[in-house]
């Protein structure tokens, strides 16, 4: 976790968690690692917020959880994406893309000469 890592924008944690899990079932620490890895260490997930977010997504039925064993043969709770989670991820990805394009366009504007 490098010092240059950026804090997440509010509201984006759920999206990132869904994306991370969509690539394959993960336990909580695995989600953390995968987001850091995918962002090239640019995004820092606050560890304290990760678990409430996971539990919230389970409550919303976007994720499902089950107990399995981790790489070092320890019992761990694994999360995977549900059908609904897939759909939700697609929608939100699209929305994010539009919003960020919009923001980028606005920020790229230059003063008219």
């Amino acid at each position, binding site marked *: 976790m490098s010092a240059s890592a950026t804090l997440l924008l509010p509201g984006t944690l759920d999206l990132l968690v869904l994306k991370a899990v969509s690539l394959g079932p993960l*336990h*909580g*620490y695995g989600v953390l690692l995968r987001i850091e890895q995918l962002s090239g260490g640019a995004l820092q997930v606050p*560890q*304290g917020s990760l678990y409430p977010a996971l539990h919230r997504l*389970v409550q919303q039925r976007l994720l499902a959880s089950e107990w399995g064993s981790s790489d070092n043969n320890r019992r*761990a709770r694994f999360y995977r994406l549900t059908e609904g989670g897939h759909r939700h991820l697609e929608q939100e990805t699209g929305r994010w893309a539009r919003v960020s394009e919009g923001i980028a366009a606005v920020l790229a504007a230059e003063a008219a000469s």
Partner: protein
Amino acid sequence: MRRWLHTLRNRRYERELAEEIEHHIDERTADLVARGLDPDGARSQARREFGSVDLVKDHCRDQDRLAWLDELTRNLRFAVRRLRRAPGVFVAVVATLALCVAANAVVFTVVDTVLFQRLPYPAPEELFEVQWSSEQSRGSLRDSVDGTMWQSLADTAPELRACVYSDWTQGVNLIARSPTGAEVATVVERQRVGSGFFELLGVPMASGRGFDIDEDRVGGAAVAVVTWRLWRDRLGAREDVLGSRLLLAGEAHTVVGVTAERFDPGTGAEVFTPLRASREGEGSGTNYRILARIGDHERAGATAALDTASRSVAAMRGDGFSFEPVPLLQARSGWLRDRLLVLWAAVGAVLLIGCVNIAGLLIAAAGRRRQEMATRRALGGGAWAVTRQLLTENLLQTACGAALGLALAGVAMRWVAGWARTALGLTHDFALDDRALLYTLAVALLATVLFSLAPTARLARTDRSSLRQRGVTDRRSKGRAVLVAGQVALGVSLLLAATLLTRSLSGLSSADPGVELEGVVSGAVSLADANFAEAGAVREYFASGVEALRADPRLVGAGAFLSLPFQRGLNMNFTLAGDDDRHLTVVNYATPGALELLAVRHVAGRLIEDRDRSTSPLVAVVNQTFTELHLAGRQPLGARISLMGAEREVVGVVGDVRQVPSFSASAPLARDVPTVYLPADQFPVEAMGMVHTWFQPHWVVRARATPAAGTEALRSAIERLEPVTPIARISGLEEARARALAVERFQALLFAVLALLALVLAAVGLAGITATEIGARRREMAVRIALGSSLPEVVRRAILPILGVAAIGLAIGLLLAQLGGRALRGMLHGIGTDDPWSHLIVIGCLVGVAVLACAPPALRLLRLPVASVLQDEA
């Protein structure tokens, strides 16, 4: 709530949450160690990075909490807060609902217990009463049979499981040894039933058996079955009671059975003896009833058997006779059915009125909450979420109202149940049981839905734009006016029904009884007793009794009758001399001077005198109705009638006396019942025994001073006269009249209570709409006053629409009552559903209520601070 939630989430959840977080920290520690940190340092850094484990756990728990439960808690908490802030509406809603729920619960319990609940016997749906119809009865069913009908049924359909019994109970003398060894004579209610009666009803005996066929034959052994209660209270709960002797009606009876503790014959009988049905004597009239048990698989067989029996009786009578099985429950409660159903409908109307009131209160409250709702919507509360919040509030009110209502019902039930038992003679066990609870719950929930619909829909519809229209309340709410008019209409029809029933009752009870009631005290004795089997015994008893009573200085006079005013009399057939047509008349007997004692009007000829002995010429005194019906156009005095096998001469005519008509019933008490009075000494000896098994003769005295003195004089004289013939049911004639009208009084009073409730609720509804209306038009009124309208003019403008609503409600209500009046028709006597006085009373009441409801807000209008209203709202 929170603690409860914690226990709800089980320990496994906590363990897994801890394990998950521990796993995270372990993994992180392992990673840090892999990056070269020493294990201890790695662990503490992992913990630092993770932050407070407890806080994370708490956040996780927050996410995992059962969402709906959480919302409910929140809504409830909010509702309680709101109700605490505005307790007025809450109290009004809960009180209204409680009254409605209480009334519904009580009436439902009575209706359900009497009409719908199972009889207290095993497989009660198999029990039937065999009734009959003939061409003469034009299809309407008769419940009593004569000995011939029963015998034909028993002979032609032996496979039918049926028995014959009498549903009349009579007081008979029981002499039992008290625990101290003294012999005590009391009067107990005796019912006579055929063999197989207890077996058919199916409640096993506590000990012993019912009657067998030999005991149920004329000349069979004298046996008796006693109820558990009699065995406990009068027979000292002796273990060796079976086979013991009981001196019943002057005759030794062997006790062969004790019924189960909870056995209820439905008649209040305490002791049973065999019926010994026959074709002669009492069996020549329709004095029996037939009970049958028909199982599901026996239906076809039973129908065929009844058809065969019907044909054999029809062949004998030649009048299209037909037996018809009627479910026993229906046969027993039929006489109350219409009254109870009407009562049920009335209480339903009260509930509707209450719901409208509550809806009105909530709509008014909603008007004040538009701001709040609009804010909630603006902050992102969905329509459904807002609706849920409102429903939660209403459910909370419902729960409080229902709970309070049930508590009220519990109190009222005890009163109504006691009344139903003593006044209506119902032996049911009235209790708010689980059926009543379920019904009440359903009623309360239905009420919630009903009274929540309108206001909730309005509030949930409130959108964000309402925020801007601050202070602008609804225009005149037409919907609410319609509801209030409907409510007034229901109230009016209930009030009219109650008024009609009350006027009918007061007509019946204040009508001229044909006798003078004041100071008259009567008491019943049982002469169906071996001591009175001898022809002379009864005569001697009456003669010496009259003598003893006349000697008492506390009494004006004394006498005896077979039946008294306000009672049901004995029916007999008679013929007029020179005519073979048989007619029915009530036959009574009286001792010399007894008619004068009651001050029965003396119309012509003479009354019964001392010279009318058993050996002197047979005479009769008839009443005016008798002469009008049967001696019209003739000189009644000297007419000869043939009655109970002997011809007698009419020597006198007396006025009509009000009594319970035993045939051609038109009213619970009637004066137009043809009646023949015979001298007690001349009553046919052969008929005496039979008649006295049905009727207990009455001693009558008139006290010089207080009725209490009369009571005492009567009791001491009669019990000294014949210690084994105790006198029972001593009461004034006024009480006898009240007893005869008990059903009418029960109905009229319950209706009056319901109508009062309805009227109060309707008044509250009117007051509510007036207040809202005037509140909403304050500004308009202020402007009018400022522009120079006179105050009376303004008040008139404000009140008129409300009075209009009341008037429309009144009109609809009267119309409704006309339509529903059909149901009441059979229950009104002496007045019709179009009784003008009742209508006037109702209209007067409603006008009064409307004015009362309008007055307070109108008076407030008079003190309207015009300037400040105009400033405020400018």
